[in-house]
């Protein structure tokens, strides 16, 4: 066997040659035919096994029908095995990221391929959690010549599988603080064509005749028209706090960590507001800063899901500040929905600063109720309760400075606070209020 060959002699070959050789020498030297007889099966078995020796390793490759999955979705990948001119026993092993459930219905088997055989082993891959995961590598361990030669084939480098987050069903009231576009479905405070009645006013040139309010006109003797508010779209910027991940993730079917909740909530919010025709942007802040520019439309939903799949807690990097967040949270009229677990003072500072700058901010608390710090000691329980109390105080102080904080509960989570934020934005828009 050449040095470059992937097939290497095993210990079985060493003993299959050494033991009968030793027995035959002793038998010859001491005239012991019984020892020669003991060597016979080894000689016959080894000679038969060595009649066909392999050179090339078995070919193993993996194909994926798709590289993008939604959480909970499954696909059937395939591992192909192929031998050259030598029969071989092949055992396949597929490594995969923790969040890709791999069930090799037939792939976890040891199989024997005859010369020139091809085998297809179906492998079911289930996306257990959003993110960017690796499937592979696929390695195969092969043995030939009755186990006298072996080789380990490392094939099919890891392939990336992007798992898009599953957005929960989400709807919210039609209340946004500052509807600012030209068209849309949100009622704005500006007068214009729309279905929401704002009051009556005196007729002026340019008003449409069908808007004349005849009752008021007859009663007052002057021409009055019905005034309506215009319907416009708005800008929504969803900010994900990736400074920490609190709680353990159990995948789609298990417990949700703070980052799970944030990502899935962001997907749901994006879907809702993009369906309403609004422009949605995304910001990830943590040790790295990432932005997805504000755009409206269906294509933005696909971009947003792909962008959300790449959210991760990065150990080291930049220090998140409002100044760095700046480019991502424009324009000033945008509704900012921040999704933090509220375990870091930097997040609290950023929220308070945004509110002081008269930005419309809603904070959605993503900390899992069952989250506990690692390790437990005599005073852990007491310390944990004190920390919760301190956190409650921080949340109350945020509310005082104008940042409503709610827990994420799917549909309707934001209804109450959106009304509040809209009222505050309107009050802030009145003449004489500081901006």
């Amino acid at each position: 066997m050449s040095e470059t060959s992937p097939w290497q002699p095993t210990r079985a070959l060493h003993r299959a040659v050494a033991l009968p050789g030793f027995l035959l020498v002793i038998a010859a030297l001491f005239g012991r035919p019984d020892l020669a007889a003991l060597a016979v099966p080894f000689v016959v078995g080894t000679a038969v096994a060595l009649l066909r020796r392999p050179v090339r390793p078995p070919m193993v490759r993996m194909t994926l029908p798709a590289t993008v999955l939604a959480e909970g979705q499954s696909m059937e990948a395939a591992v192909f095995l192929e031998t050259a001119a030598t029969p071989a026993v092949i055992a396949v092993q597929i490594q995969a990221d923790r969040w890709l459930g791999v069930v090799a219905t037939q792939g976890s088997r040891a199989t024997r391929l005859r010369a020139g055989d091809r085998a297809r082993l179906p492998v079911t891959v289930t996306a257990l959690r959003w993110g960017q995961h690796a499937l592979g590598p696929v390695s195969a361990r092969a043995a030939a010549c009755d186990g006298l030669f072996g080789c380990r084939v490392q094939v099919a480098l890891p392939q990336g599988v992007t798992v898009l987050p599953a957005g929960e069903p989400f709807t919210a009231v039609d209340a946004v603080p500052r509807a600012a576009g030209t068209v849309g479905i949100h009622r704005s405070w500006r007068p214009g064509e729309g279905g929401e009645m704002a009051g009556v006013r005196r007729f002026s040139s340019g008003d449409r005749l069908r808007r004349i309010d005849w009752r008021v006109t007859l009663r007052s003797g002057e021409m009055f028209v019905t005034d309506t508010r215009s319907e416009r779209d708005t800008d929504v910027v969803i900010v994900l706090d990736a400074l920490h991940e609190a709680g353990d993730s159990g995948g789609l079917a298990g417990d949700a960590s703070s980052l799970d909740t944030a990502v899935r909530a962001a997907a749901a919010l994006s879907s809702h507001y993009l369906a309403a025709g609004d422009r949605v942007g995304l910001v990830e802040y943590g040790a790295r800063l990432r932005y997805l520019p504000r755009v409206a439309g269906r294509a933005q939903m696909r971009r947003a899901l792909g962008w959300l799949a790449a959210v991760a807690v990065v150990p080291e990097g930049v220090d998140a500040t409002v100044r760095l967040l700046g480019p991502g949270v424009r324009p000033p009229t945008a509704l900012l929905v921040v999704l933090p677990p509220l375990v870091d003072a930097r997040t609290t500072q950023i929220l308070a600063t945004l509110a002081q700058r008269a930005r419309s901010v809603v904070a959605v608390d993503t900390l899992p109720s069952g989250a506990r710090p690692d390790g437990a000691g005599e005073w852990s329980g007491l310390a944990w309760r004190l920390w919760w109390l301190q956190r409650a105080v921080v949340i109350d102080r945020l509310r005082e400075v104008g940042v409503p904080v709610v827990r994420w509960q799917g549909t309707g989570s934001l209804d109450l606070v959106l009304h509040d934020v809209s009222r505050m934005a309107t009050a802030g828009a009145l003449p004489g209020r500081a901006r």
Partner: protein
Amino acid sequence: MKLPARSGDFAVTVAVRLMVAAFGLAALLVPLPGFTTPSAVLAVFALPLPIVVALRPDSGWVAALLSIAVAEWVITSLFEGTSPAALTVAFGILLYLLHASASFAAALPVTRRVEPGLLIHAVVRLLAVIAVSLLLMVLALSAPSRPGSIGLAAAGSVGAMGVVTLLVVLLRRRPAD
């Protein structure tokens, strides 16, 4: 990757390793005098090595066990005389079964299901080797046993050289593919 653990999935690989342990224990006990009634104490002392071999069939423990069994055979024959031909044939086949089953077990990760075709092929091949070996073993045992005979030693040495040459030629031969 977490492999699917269905009942019976790994029955074959476990059974193969149990066979390795059984062959190993038998190989240690058969050469001993009065092996048909082995004492429990002896069996207990002999058991650990076959278990290690069954757990690590790809290790050097297989060769160690084979060497110990052969050493037992040689030492026993020095005190008790040459064993009957039938026992010699049985012991030779037992050693080969231990070697072959350990090679087979080493090629199969224990967490794999084994296709029936793979198992059938291995058994058929093993039976064929044993059948041919039986014939040659009977021929070898029919040779006269005369320790100290220079002519016989020379003939035996030539035969041993021939066998080793055959294996070397097979190993150096151009591979099939």
